[in-house]
């Protein structure tokens, strides 16, 4: 087990190293510099600015310095937001994204499970079809359609919620729904298919013949065994939340990390792009690693020595 985790961890570090290097090369290959302004600046000022941000040194030295700082968790200073450290920008904006992300993960798991259970219990009946139609619709309506739709119907027409911002607890409702719809659908389908299989297993028949009530069978026996695939879904869920948050934050005007990421790309703010890329990559890789570990821990049937663990 420890060997497996350390191997995965080593791969994570290699991937991260490749990503950082590739990002660094890509960004320096772009013509134009973040220091170029609309107004003409004198040559001396330009030189001083370059020296300040260390852009006058040869590329390989810049790369060395960046790597050295990175090992010390120093992501540098933003070139567009005056004198703000990149890690400060990230930690300030990430708290909004984090709250929204947690709300979304919890909502997806709970609602997804409920839909999936209903579908499995009433397999091939009305309720099954209904929840699966809801799931397919959730999967087909992308967040960039879902968010404006909710905004228009519930905030503009009915005025039940604020159109934008994130000031009170009620303001979380719309962004959370928009962010979760795809994951809800995915989890519901996952739970349904495993649960249908589990409900036909022998131990369920035993429970039934013991005279256990229907809801107890589902709750105590079937659900636990059906939760396994959802654990592996964690990595995908995180990726989905992060990708989605970029759009949701834009539509609902939330000052989260996703918004800064897009902004930094169009601003060509090198340190900020690098910083956020690395930050996102680390979060995603760690959640994928955790999902892998959790999967092995939760399901004793999986043996690591037998090659690759489920993707």
């Amino acid at each position, binding site marked *: 087990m420890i060997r497996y985790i350390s191997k995965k961890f080593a*791969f994570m570090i290699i991937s991260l190293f490749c990503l950082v290097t590739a990002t660094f090369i890509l960004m320096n290959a772009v013509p134009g510099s973040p220091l170029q302004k609309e107004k003409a600046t004198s040559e001396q000022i330009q030189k001083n600015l370059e020296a300040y941000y260390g852009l006058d040194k040869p590329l390989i030295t810049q790369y060395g310095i960046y790597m050295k700082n990175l090992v010390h968790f120093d992501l540098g200073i933003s070139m567009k937001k005056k004198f703000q450290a990149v890690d400060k920008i990230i930690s300030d904006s990430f708290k909004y994204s984090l709250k929204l992300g947690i709300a979304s993960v919890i909502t997806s798991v709970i609602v997804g499970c409920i839909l999936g259970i209903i579908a499995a219990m009433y397999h091939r009946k009305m309720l099954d079809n209904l929840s699966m139609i809801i799931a397919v619709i959730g999967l087909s309506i992308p967040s*960039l359609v879902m968010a404006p739709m909710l905004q228009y119907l519930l905030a503009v027409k009915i005025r039940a919620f604020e159109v934008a911002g994130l000031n009170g607890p009620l303001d979380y409702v719309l962004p959370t729904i928009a962010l979760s719809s795809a994951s809800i659908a995915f989890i519901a389908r996952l739970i349904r298919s495993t649960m249908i299989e589990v409900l036909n297993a022998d131990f369920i028949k035993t429970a039934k013949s013991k005279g256990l009530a229907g809801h107890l069978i589902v709750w105590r026996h079937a659900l636990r065994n059906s939760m396994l695939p959802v654990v592996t879904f964690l990595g995908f869920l995180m990726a989905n939340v992060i990708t989605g948050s970029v759009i949701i934050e834009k539509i609902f005007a939330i000052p989260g990390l996703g918004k800064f990421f897009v902004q930094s790309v169009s601003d060509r703010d090198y340190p900020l792009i690098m910083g956020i890329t690395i930050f996102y990559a680390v979060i995603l*890789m760690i959640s994928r690693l955790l999902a892998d570990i959790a999967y092995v821990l939760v399901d004793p049937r999986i043996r690591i020595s037998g090659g690759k663990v489920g993707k």
Partner: protein
Amino acid sequence: MQTETKTGALHPEMFKPTDRIPGNLEKIERNRLTAWQDIRLRLLSNKLAMTGLWIMVVVILFAVLAPLFSANNHFTNDLVNTNQAPSVKHWFGTDDLGRDLYVRTWKGAQVSLFVGVVAGLIDLFIGIIYGGIMGYYGGKVDEFMNRFAEILYAIPYLLVVILLLVVMEPSLLTIIVAMSITGWINMAWIVRGQIMQLKNQEYALASKALGAGPMRIIFRHLIPNAMGPILVTLTLTVPSAIFTEAFLSFLGLGVQSPVASWGTMINDGVKSMTLYPWRVFFPAFFLSLTMFAFNVFGDGLRDAFDPKLKS
């Protein structure tokens, strides 16, 4: 005496032994179906999947034909008639520059479908070659190629896309290239798994014994037999590519005006949603409809290929 059961009329005559004609004992009374006929039959009887297929056909037809047969075109500004509601002249209304939204919506469909199909085909091409070689040779080759894919896979997909867009000009080509960099890995793993299962089958061994080279065995014998899972993966790649294009265009990182794309149209429409809701409605509706169609068709195809679901 006849017994009526719930499953329809069962008559005792149905259970009479057939006449024993010598020489005819091995005859199979039921119509024999090849694997592909069976799959087609099951796909055709899946109503939801067929609905998806019909929607796909209609959207493709409109995307190709509608811009050709309309009196308007997608880039002419008409500053007198801006933000018009849907009417006889402009079926879907006009945008803030007076451009006809009916034509723009179908031009957007062209972009989305083009990106979806081309990205899907590139994934297919690279995935089959890479996965085929990986699966057939096994051992060290497999180990090495798999490590490379794993490292690439660990790098979050969205980050690669956005980083590449920093370097290259935002355009259709950039989007497709960016999506293909990591998109093929999933396909490669599917192909690898299939090839590993198939390579020890008798027909592959026979071909090897007759002196066929590895490439011939892989591409002439193994890949055609792995076509089922490959096709399913392909149909499910297309909607995710369509979504990514819309996502990037929505963020302003994709295709640029005056070229229409569903993503950019939604982005434009959201800004004035309270006043002119139709500007966001039509692109959003057709984007969702197309993704719905591809998703349900892909699901139906997967079910049709899965012999376990045969009833």
